[in-house]
């Protein structure tokens, strides 16, 4: 039997890699899901672009784009057409190969994240048993693309942005991972599908602090306000993609929104019980939650200013990291000693713990100042 045999069912050989009830062979499944994921990601990214502009518009007491199509829904399409027809500029003294490769390197890993995301029960490309680990690992690869872009642009703003990006990613990866671990401990599995299944109570209630840490760290990972340092438009113009134009810029723009989508999806899966929900079909629940998470991200963006680079680092190391460690410790203890019969009591206990910890840390933690004697 060849590996390319359409009838091959790999799950028989590698139990756990494929949802058991999924019909058809491995390769059909693979092909179908690649198309689904691509369509899903691109459509959702476009929807997000539109939604963000409309929402930010309303937050700012204006309308947002409403000219192209009904309610302006075709605005991203119009933007895409416009951007495709723009001249592709490569800086004369830039590193051309790296410059060319950077958008690709940034874009591919973001797409790959969606391979392990369950859209509804069992509907996912690969039910990896290390799903969440895979997500954390693969999503940080795209920063290489960002750094390549910043380096090869031969632009000081780009370089500053890229340097900020790398240091920020390295710092925030740790609290991010630790806050995910809390969920994993509760669910007892790394597979995203199993994590969703384990959520009889959404983990946001069991892990309120972990949720906050994850949101903060994820916002930093995907460069959203208040941590959007690497493309801080009021400081370093556009950061790493200052020099990019045309389709290459479009790819970076797409990466940005795909990353937001990825984070919304992961948050939905890890903390909001994924596709679970009463009455409505699971896929709809999934989408509603994803859009809800995205709206919150946009809401934050429309409100808060940006932290400074050293403050961002301090926030990661001095605030998020210890809190995440404590959270993990508490979760571990709870899982070990707490009786199974009283899950709702944990909710209130953990909320109380969160409040106490945040109050405590507000006393310890200091931001601001930061003048360097030169």
């Amino acid at each position, binding site marked *: 039997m060849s590996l390319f045999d359409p009838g091959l069912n790999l799950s028989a050989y590698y139990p756990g890699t494929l949802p058991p009830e999924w019909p058809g062979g491995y390769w059909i499944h693979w092909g179908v899901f690649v198309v689904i994921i691509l369509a899903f990601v691109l459509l959702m990214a476009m929807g997000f672009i539109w939604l963000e502009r409309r929402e930010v518009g*309303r937050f*700012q007491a204006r*309308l947002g784009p409403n000219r192209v199509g009904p309610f302006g829904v075709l605005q991203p399409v119009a933007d895409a057409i416009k951007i495709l027809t723009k001249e592709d500029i490569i800086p004369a003294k830039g590193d051309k190969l790296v410059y060319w490769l950077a958008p690709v390197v940034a874009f591919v890993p973001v797409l790959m994240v969606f391979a392990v995301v369950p859209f509804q029960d069992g509907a996912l490309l690969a039910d990896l048993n290390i799903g969440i680990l895979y997500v954390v690992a693969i999503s940080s690869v795209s920063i290489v693309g960002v750094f390549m872009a910043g380096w090869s642009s031969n632009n000081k703003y780009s370089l500053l942005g890229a340097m900020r990006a790398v240091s920020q990613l390295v710092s925030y990866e740790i609290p991010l991972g630790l806050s995910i671990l809390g969920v994993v401990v509760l669910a007892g599995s790394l597979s995203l599908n199993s994590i969703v299944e384990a959520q009889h109570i959404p983990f946001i209630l069991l892990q309120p602090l972990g949720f906050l840490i994850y949101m903060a760290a994820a916002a930093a990972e995907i460069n959203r306000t208040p941590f959007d340092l690497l493309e801080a438009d009021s400081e370093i113009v556009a950061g790493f993609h200052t020099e990019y134009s045309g389709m290459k810029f479009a790819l970076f723009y797409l990466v940005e929104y795909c990353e937001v989508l990825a984070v919304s999806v992961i948050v939905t899966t890890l903390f909001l019980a994924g596709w679970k929900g009463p009455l409505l079909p699971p896929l709809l629940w999934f989408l509603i939650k994803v859009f809800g998470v995205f709206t919150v991200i946009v809401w934050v963006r429309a*409100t808060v200013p940006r932290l400074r680079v050293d403050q961002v680092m301090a926030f990661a190391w001095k605030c998020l990291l210890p809190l995440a460690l404590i959270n993990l410790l508490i979760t571990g203890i709870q899982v070990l000693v707490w009786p199974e019969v009283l899950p709702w009591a944990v909710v209130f206990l953990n909320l109380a713990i969160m409040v106490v910890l945040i109050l405590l840390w*507000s006393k310890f933690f*200091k*931001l601001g100042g930061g003048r360097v004697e030169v």
Partner: protein
Amino acid sequence: MKFERYGAGIAKGMLVTLKHLFRHPVTTQYPEERLTVSRRTRGNELIWDRERCTGCATCAKSCPQGAIRIVTSRGEENDYIVEEFRVDSGYCIFCGLCVESCPYEALFMGYGYERARYRRRELVLNKEELLVSEKKQPSGYARPKVEATLPPQTLLLDRNGVKK
């Protein structure tokens, strides 16, 4: 700076933005929705009253930019005949000093605001182009009689408030 307020400040700010989500947006959909400009608007372009003008050239003297050119000749009744009255709107800064200084109320600011041109030479207006037409209406700037006939200005103040 400690986080003395435990993120309460951020939360308060987010409430403000949330409140705006349910407020009426202030955007005006321009080509479809038009606001009435002020009755005294100093818009495009100057309007000249051929009958009232005596050719005294006070307007040309008061123009800080030198955008008005008047050529007159001596008429039969010992008056001026205006041979050329030319305004270069490209130089005009719409300060309204010419209209204010006109002793015979023969010059008006325009009421319009949509008279963009593609060529610079079209900005130079001669006698015929300066007359009142359907497209060019006088504004009430320094002309109280005209002002009384114009509709009141739409104000943003009336369109939305704190409580909506």
